[in-house]
């Protein structure tokens, strides 16, 4: 194999033209979509994406299938290049598509390419735009698609999610994907719980750094709002967009009132932490010191058990 310099590992976001990939990327990664970059034909996203995901993964977006022969040829000739070093394949299906056969065909050819070039990649299938399906039919339709996809994907194992940008399913699906990509996530969770109990926090959340997807959380009592993770993610991403207008980058935030104090801060190289204390008498400095100390501990955890380490070995 030709490892040499560490090649960046990819997250491939693929699917038919118009299935919603650009919107999805924009929402998850807080990228501004300029009008003119859309629908001029297929998206050719060759290493232009600077979005770092989970530290060292780079997001690549490709349109797959359904365009003219020029694109087909380009796609086929660049195939090996595209499918090499893939850590994750996320394939998006438009639930309203009228050409199911064709969609499955393209999906299978992508899987073949994956098998050849990155056999250890994790495969996720998103059945997207589910808001266009009537509510009482959604489960049924999703189950059908899931069965078909699992069958077609053999010998690779794929995980299926149903998503829509207009409900919580998109955020949850991507959070699940990120959860599966974090190495030793269970260990992280145990440590997080301990940390929370030591500092007497009401709730502690661990976010992925680029997308503020929730990786793990601990809460000591029932919370009222089930959508709070997505809301916080939206708020922080909007705040980051505002900060970027000033060419500033978001680092940390503290919010207090008479009922609570909340801290958001960088944690490890891949994560942010959010700590909610309902005892506002504890001075901020104390909590911040605690967070800093915990940071060192968690960094060590992450470094030691990096699975990318083992994947790197298998690279060609």
């Amino acid at each position, binding site marked *: 194999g030709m490892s040499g310099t560490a090649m960046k590992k990819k997250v491939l976001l693929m699917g038919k033209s118009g299935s919603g990939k650009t919107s999805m990327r924009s929402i998850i990664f807080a990228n501004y979509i*300029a009008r003119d970059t859309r629908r001029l034909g297929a998206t050719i996203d060759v290493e232009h994406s600077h979005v770092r995901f989970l530290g060292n993964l780079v997001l690549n977006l490709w349109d797959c299938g359904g365009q003219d022969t020029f694109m087909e040829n380009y796609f086929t000739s660049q195939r090996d290049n595209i499918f090499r070093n893939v850590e994750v394949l996320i394939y998006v299906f438009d639930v309203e598509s009228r050409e199911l056969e064709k969609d499955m065909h393209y999906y299978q050819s992508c899987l073949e390419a994956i098998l050849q070039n990155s056999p250890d990649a994790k495969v996720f299938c998103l059945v997207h735009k589910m808001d266009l399906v009537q509510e009482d039919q959604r489960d049924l339709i999703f189950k059908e698609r899931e069965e078909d996809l699992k069958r077609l994907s053999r010998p690779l194992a794929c995980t299926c999610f149903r998503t829509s940008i207009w409900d919580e399913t998109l955020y949850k699906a991507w959070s699940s994907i990120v959860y599966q990509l974090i190495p030793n996530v269970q260990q992280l969770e145990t440590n997080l719980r301990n940390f929370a109990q030591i500092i007497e926090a009401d709730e502690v959340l661990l976010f992925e750094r680029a997308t503020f997807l929730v990786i793990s959380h601990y809460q000591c009592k029932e919370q009222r709002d089930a959508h709070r993770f997505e809301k916080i993610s*939206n*708020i922080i*991403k909007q705040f980051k967009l505002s900060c970027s207008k000033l060419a500033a980058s978001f680092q940390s935030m503290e919010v*207090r*009132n008479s009922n609570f104090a909340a801290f958001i801060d960088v944690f490890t190289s891949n994560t942010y932490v959010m700590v909610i204390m309902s005892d506002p008498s504890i001075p901020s400095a104390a909590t911040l010191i605690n967070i800093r100390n915990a940071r060192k501990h968690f960094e060590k955890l992450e470094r030691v058990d990096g699975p990318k380490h083992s994947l790197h070995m298998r690279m060609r």
Partner: protein
Amino acid sequence: MGLVHFCRCVWALSLELDDFVSTGQPLDSSLSKIYHPSVHQCSGRKPFHVEPRNIVDDDPQKRISAEAAILNSRVHYYGRLTASSDMLLSPPNHVIPLNEELYVYSPLGTAFKVPDGDSASKNPSIVTIFAIWNTMMGTSILSIPWGIKQSGFTLGILILILTGLLMLYCCYIVIKSPKAIPNEDTSSWEFPDVCRFYFGKTGQWSSLLFSMVSLIGAMVVYWVLMSNFLYNTGQGIQNFVHNISTSDSEFGTNGSDRVICPFPKTNPEGNDTTCTLRLSSVGNSSDPGAFEHYWSKTRTVPLYLIVLLLPLLCFRSASFFARFTFFGTISVVYLIVLVTIKAVRLGFHLEFHWLDTSQFFVPEFRQFFPNFTGILTLAFFIHNCIITLMKSNKNQDNNVRDLSVAYLLVGLTYLYVGVLIFAAFPSPPLYKDCIEPNFLDNFPSSDVLVFVARFLLLFQMITVYPLLGYLVRVQIMGQLFGNHYPSFLHILILNIFIVGTGVAMAMFYPNIGSIIRYSGAICGLALVFLFPALVHMMSLRQDGRLSWPSAFFHSFLIVLGLANVIAQVFM
């Protein structure tokens, strides 16, 4: 709890910071404390300590539902990701909650429901039907017996049914017409807008013109009738106070239920001067003579009304008068009761002479039937506002059914009044030909029931007249000057013109039968037959669904409308 508070505050903070970043000006004065530390000591309030409160009323606080809150969060966030004109990430209709579930969300945490104007004014079918019946019921009800007399009893009934059906069909194609227009949002369009769409400026102006004809025609009829009723009211009071009996002066039946024939000739287009002379010969004291001099139906009373009505017409807003629309219903109901009582007391006097004329009766089929069609065209006219009336129907699928029921009820009402008055008209002493264009004229001023009817109608017309004037003003001023009230002078000139026409008619040609049939036929030609049929044929042709029978039928409708107008002149 903590996290929810946090969400709110951070969201508010990010909004504030965003605004601060873009404009450099902090918005909320309480937050300005963090930028101007010197203000810290002003109140005991700590930053971000805001009590949730309702910003509109004191109802128990409503909190936003979880789904709405998260949708709100998404809409805010997605809005930052695209240009404001880009629809890529804007919520589709099926995602937005129904009107009933829309709240105004305050960042301070509370939400209140805004009562939606639109959904609040959706009426059940029965209310829509009643509104249509109420709007259609006009003063033409007074002329229906005369119309039946002009066309003959049997032919009259047939014509009423046929005309009703024809106009119902034309009304149906009018309400269908905005929906047949593709690619346009026609939800606020009325029929003149549809005409503008198909025929351009010409269509808009001509439909407006003919609409004006019907409105001004109605206002002229109102003036004539108001003069009539005011005169009779005054005359009745005068007779009652001075105990004058007028039974000798007028040709009519004897007995308690007196019916008179004001112009006892076979030609109903009576001569005014004859009547005046006869009445002035009654008085044997100087007072009644002077009273007749100052209280004449055609010479002075129309002018007295100017004093009352011209100021009312110049009001800027007509909403005050809209409160009195229920008077119209009371008047119609009272008329129906009155007609029933009269018919019961007078009994039926019907003889069927099919085509020959007899002294007391009229043939069943007469050549003057176009008079009745002209009256019916105005009696069933609602085509210029039916789209607006139907918009507030709760269940839009029932529009056709509700319209048909309304037309049926209107037709039945007219039929009831017309047939009963015609049948109960005491023919052996009087001639059926005597039935007046305003059937109340066939009853003397001393008749108490009819006196009350005249008074009710007078009051109702005084309240509707400014409304009609307002409609005319809004349409004319709006089209000519773009402003509903350009200046007092403009309005005054317009009102003087309208009132002048009414006064002139009341003084020199107070035959409401003719006024109604001419204005009905003319505006009916355009707004009932010509434009709806043309619009319907054009929309069918655009869809490629215009078949020969359909084209023939609709062209025939236009011919009928034209024939209606021409026949008014010759018959």
